[in-house]
């Protein structure tokens, strides 16, 4: 599998990371080196093997579906880059 510049640009877009056009060829090359390394996995016979979900065979614990915590607005907002009137503030989301 060879990654071209268009694919690299698409992956950057999906990852929500801005990559300038002139940096895309080098990025595509790095992807190719890493994916080339990963492709060794194709040698392994995985017929009938279930993909691992958890290393420990234990059921996910459940709790009562009740509120356990809350009323921490000030703490939740304490680290926000921009918070106003008790909300997180962001640029315009809808046109």
């Amino acid at each position: 599998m060879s990654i071209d510049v268009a694919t690299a640009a698409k992956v950057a877009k999906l990852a929500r990371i801005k990559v300038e056009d002139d940096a895309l060829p080098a990025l595509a090359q790095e992807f190719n080196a890493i994916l080339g390394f990963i492709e060794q996995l194709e040698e392994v016979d995985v017929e009938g093997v279930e993909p691992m979900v958890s290393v420990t065979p234990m059921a996910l614990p459940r709790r009562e579906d009740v509120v356990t915590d809350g009323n921490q607005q000030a703490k939740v907002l304490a680290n926000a880059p921009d918070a106003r009137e008790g909300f997180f503030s962001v640029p315009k989301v809808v046109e």
Partner: protein
Amino acid sequence: MSDLNALTIAAARDALRTGEVTSVDLTQACLSAIDAADALGAFAHKTPELALERAAAADKRIAAGDAPDMCGIPVGIKDLFCTEGVPSQAASKILEGFKPEYESTVSGKLRDAGAVMLGKLNMDEFAMGSSNETSVYGNAVNPWRAGNSDAALTPGGSSGGSASAVAADLCLAATGTDTGGSIRQPAAFTGTVGLKPTYGRCSRWGIVAFASSLDQAGPMTKTVRDAAIMGRAMMGHDAKDSTSANHGVPDFESMLTGNVKGIVIGIPKEYRMDGMPAEIEKLWADGTAMLKDAGAEIRDISLPHTKYALPAYYVIAPAEASSNLARYDGVRFGYRAKLAPGDGITEMYEKTRAEGFGAEVQRRVMVGTYVLSAGFYDAYYNRARRVRALIKRDFDEVFAAGVDAILTPATPSAAFELGKQVSDPVEMYLNDVFTVTVNLAGLPGVAVPTGLDRDGLPLGLQLIGKPWEEGELLNTAYALETAAGFVEKPTRWW
């Protein structure tokens, strides 16, 4: 008593209990050592006032007769752990200015046991790296140097600051985290002991997530006994982490008898790699002989899927990282990029993440995005998870056949020069070749210093144990440590 900062946890604990020293004395000795060691780049955020406050409180507790093992012991905390009111930024620009309103379970357990936090320790950005060269704070440096050279060496990664601080006696011990070898590889590079517990032993709550199915916190210490003491204080069930296991935590220290008569040590043939340095071969053979002399039975074993551990890791870890790191978008905490007029929310995300994440983190997030994307999910991600199941099965079969622990080298070489391997990511990934299988299988592993290379640099061996049997594993490590008699320390140049 001189050089209080050079004490082990065990020695300091005993001296505190007899009243021979105070925690304030110990803490001040460490703070002086830290201030004289900026050249090591080990501490990213120093918290001297907080430390002295906690030390004074610990002294009161001890005087009142309430002295848990870690009470009054000065430790460093890796920057990956969220610590209440203290900067915690996982060595990333994207968490600049972040001061958590909460304490991670593991650092909280240490705090509640009376341990004294000296500050936050340097690391690779988001724990992604094997040389501590991806940190926004700059490199951490190994206190050891090769022969007469003054070249700066890596302390390993990602827990490079932790390893450097423990080796240089800036603290009595430190916390680390290990996703592919990030406790054991730096321990081996600095002549210290690093324990990666069984997956689920230490709560991951409040530890900045890298790859959730692999990450595990553990102690980085000067001796195996200290790893037993500090490890016990860090472990235990936590309802806030759904992968935290509900197992009792025994008193590991009382299990350190040094008696390994009759236990079976497996030597896996697949860890004998092409081009492995003769020194590593010899180290491994010497360690095997030491355990045999101590009465252990040595058995050749096979772990046939070892070769595929690194490629599987470099699918699974980036996949999980791409998901975990999606939360860093400039909205709720940390860094937000300056926006141009007309920029909307997508531009805010893209610019914030481009400016906030370093090159290696961006690379791994994008690789993870790719292997999880439509059309490639089965070919890469699901295949890697199937291979992971086979790697775990290899270990299960060996343990079922009566092997108690497995002995391997910890690293393929001694510490290398900073700047030497950064150009080729795949080359850098090979540093974790002996450690990464343990994370994929969720097993406990410990690195023990057992020798020096021809340049006088420390080398370590790794012991891998059965799940939940850290006590037995540490006892075997204790026997190896005793037989190896490693006592060398770096010569002070900083």
